[in-house]
């Protein structure tokens, strides 16, 4: 994938997240909207880290430090959302 492809994927994913909010689907009951939203954010952030920040070719420690951050942040947010729904 070239940076141009990645840019288009990032734009498309942003469009889906916006549509979830705009259509009101983000407020529908259950975990589905928030899971979709943060799965998209996860993929977007991963692409920025690996391809734009060039961590794909970085020493493993740095790659896992940032990817670990992403896992912690997204799972933490989803967990908090789940707690808020109970």
């Amino acid at each position, binding site marked *: 994938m070239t*940076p*141009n492809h*990645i*840019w288009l994927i*990032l*734009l498309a994913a*942003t469009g889906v*997240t*916006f549509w*979830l*909010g*705009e259509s009101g689907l*983000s*407020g529908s009951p259950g975990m589905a*909207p*928030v899971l979709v*939203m*943060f799965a*998209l*954010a996860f993929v*977007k*952030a991963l692409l*920025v*880290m690996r*391809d*734009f*920040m*060039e961590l794909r*070719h*970085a*020493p*493993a420690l*740095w790659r896992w*430090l*940032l990817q670990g*951050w992403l896992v*912690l*942040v*997204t799972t*933490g*947010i989803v*967990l*908090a*959302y789940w*707690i*808020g*729904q109970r």
Partner: protein
Amino acid sequence: MTLRNTMPDPPRLVGDLAVWLIIVAEMLAFCILFLSYAFARAKDVALFNASQSTLDLHSGAINTVLLITGSWCVVRAVQAVRVDASPSGARWLGAALVCGAGFVTLKVLEFSAKADAGIDLSTNTFFMFYLLLTGFHFLHVIAAMLFLTLLLFKTLQGAYGSSDSHALESGAAFWHMVDLLWIVLFPLVYVMR
């Protein structure tokens, strides 16, 4: 083809180690803010949802597009400079700065609309987090733009090229971090309800 050419490049952290240490420190700070927001929201979902509905989703989405596009421009700038095409690199950096300026303009309008509505840090828990998170992020966009402006001038002077693009790569990494943080911030603060 010689054996040397078939060997993969050794792993390399693109940019300066000091800048990467700053990036990690900033990301840790934002991690704490993001999770604090999420867990504070879990305690008072109704208040957060009611306050969030006053935010402009359109401007949040346009800002996401601006930062993503800015990041893409910076990637193209680094690619250009690496093949010694400095004028092209400078144009891509200029395009990234235009995206950054668009983000800053929309954010200033958003902040001033909130201030006009009498909203400040003490309004409620949601707005305290909203102002802290987006305000702190806003300062990082400004810092990244200053960094990039300096790099643009140096690129125009032909300071970087295939043999040395280290400083440009460092600035690029910081710029991408700002984009990365907004990618999480936008669904968290503007969309999740």
